[in-house]
């Protein structure tokens, strides 16, 4: 997203939703690629921005995920959250990006807006270690509770660090 080639092209008609977001948050970085509109929102305003977009018709939260830009050429931030929004009536889509950084990557939870975010945010916490403030039940989703690392981070090796061998053996009496 950082060294985008298509942002240099002359801009088409400005997306009205992006204009509304600019009114809320000030100047924003926005771009399109393959016809997909994307906009970057500051982390402290993400809940307000997404709440505004929900009131503007983006009623369906498709996905919450994250990208770790640790080894990405020209990246300015470490983690980029991806909120994929869609509207069930107008069939529009919008990608909202929120960038956060180490050591304490934190962002507001959007569970108050969409119940769908509950498990999606738990998964991001589990695999990337990003805390969602205001989340009702921020537990690990796919990895076991005893797990200490966040495996989709880029500094985590493909074959793991041998955590599985250190799991306590559960005997029949304790199961």
């Amino acid at each position: 997203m950082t060294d985008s080639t298509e942002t240099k092209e002359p801009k088409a008609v400005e997306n009205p939703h992006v204009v509304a977001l600019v009114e809320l948050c000030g100047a924003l970085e926005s771009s399109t690629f393959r016809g997909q509109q994307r906009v970057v929102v500051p982390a402290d305003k993400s809940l307000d921005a997404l709440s505004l977009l929900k009131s503007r018709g983006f009623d369906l939260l498709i996905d919450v995920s994250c990208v770790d830009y640790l080894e990405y050429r020209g990246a300015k931030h470490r983690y980029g959250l991806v909120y994929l929004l869609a509207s069930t009536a107008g069939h529009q889509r919008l990608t909202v990006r929120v960038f956060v950084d180490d050591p304490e990557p934190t962002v507001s939870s959007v569970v108050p807006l969409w119940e769908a975010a509950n498990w999606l945010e738990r998964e991001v916490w589990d695999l990337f270690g990003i805390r969602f403030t205001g989340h009702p039940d921020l537990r690990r989703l796919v990895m076991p509770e005893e797990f200490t690392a966040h495996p989709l981070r880029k500094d985590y090796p493909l074959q793991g660090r041998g955590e599985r061998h250190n799991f306590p053996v559960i005997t029949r009496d304790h199961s």
Partner: protein
Amino acid sequence: MAIAPTEIETPPEARSEDYLWTLNFGPQHPATHTTLRLVLKLEGERVVDAVPEMGYLHSGFEKLGEHLTFNQYVTVTDRMNYISPMANNVAWHHSVETLLGIDLTPRCTYIRTIVAELARISDHLLSNGAVGLDTGAFTYFLYAFYQREVIYDIFETLCGARFTNSYTRVGGVSQDFTPLVIEKTRAFLKTFPKTLNDMERLLNRNRIFVDRTKGVGLLTKEEAINRGATGPVARASGVTRDLRRDEPYLAYSDFDFQVSCASAGDCYARYLVRMQEMRESLKIVEQAIENLPSGPVDVGIDERMALPTKKQVYSTIEGTISHFELSMSNRGFEVPCEEAYAAIEAPNGELGFYLVGDGEDQAYRARCRPPSVLNFAMFPHLIRGHTLSDVVAVLGSLNIIAAELDR
């Protein structure tokens, strides 16, 4: 020695919920079909609360996606929703081609549409068959599985694999349609509606089945949108969203078909929507197979995205160079340093991949948006207040595939 009731002391730590019975449902239970776990809190036979747990089949597909090339990863997508691997193949390469900016040949879009719709039929057959099986309709299940066999046979003729097809490639497919495949598909189109009629006659007005599914697992339209439901689960609740019609991809804009919807939002409505969608899929396959465009199935040599045919490799210099470059690890595809999301209407709902490219042959990040996760997350909401025996009906009607759920 008999103890008088007054002598039994209530333990001080007893809580008001202690009369509730906790039941572990899964991870190994025949009705969960795959490995997932529910911790149910029961009051008698009534479910007070359910806590779903997942992760038993977590195999790190997204991490693998960062280490396998775009063509290699298709084998992994087979193993996500293994009920309809063809649809996953199509979804994966649809996203890859969106990122790379490849326009497919008309023949390829038609072929992919046909296999995706056949995959939808086989998925719905299993999903509805499993609901039937779990609610006691074993015959119905066998009718469904027999027809799945026919579809497997078509896929085997097409690409050599019945189950894990790995059929698509970047810019094309691994095997073109042969006359035998077309003949078998036409035979299926002729015989399947009769079985579908039989299946509808078996269950649609079956007293036991209707009693066990009607009014069970209610999902309102507002809740469906709020909880991110897509696919048949959302359409059974009155959300008329279908990517095939709303954001036409592949060749769907060429075909005449209806989006199947219902407004009841219960297990029975989800069953009916799936039954109707199979008929619509048949209509799409029929139109596609009769109007299958001729011409090449893969994108041309100039695009340097799909491997050229053996004839081109051995008889033209462009073919040799293209084959050589695509096989070399430091050449391969031209991937933009960009990000793109593309989704298809998979049998279970919106299946999309968010891909980040960094110029390499493999994705920098390959996020899979699985419909099962959001469907499973709403399970406690659907089951609260129903009886224990309704758990299997609701679970079956959501069609949760644990391999896709856990990735």
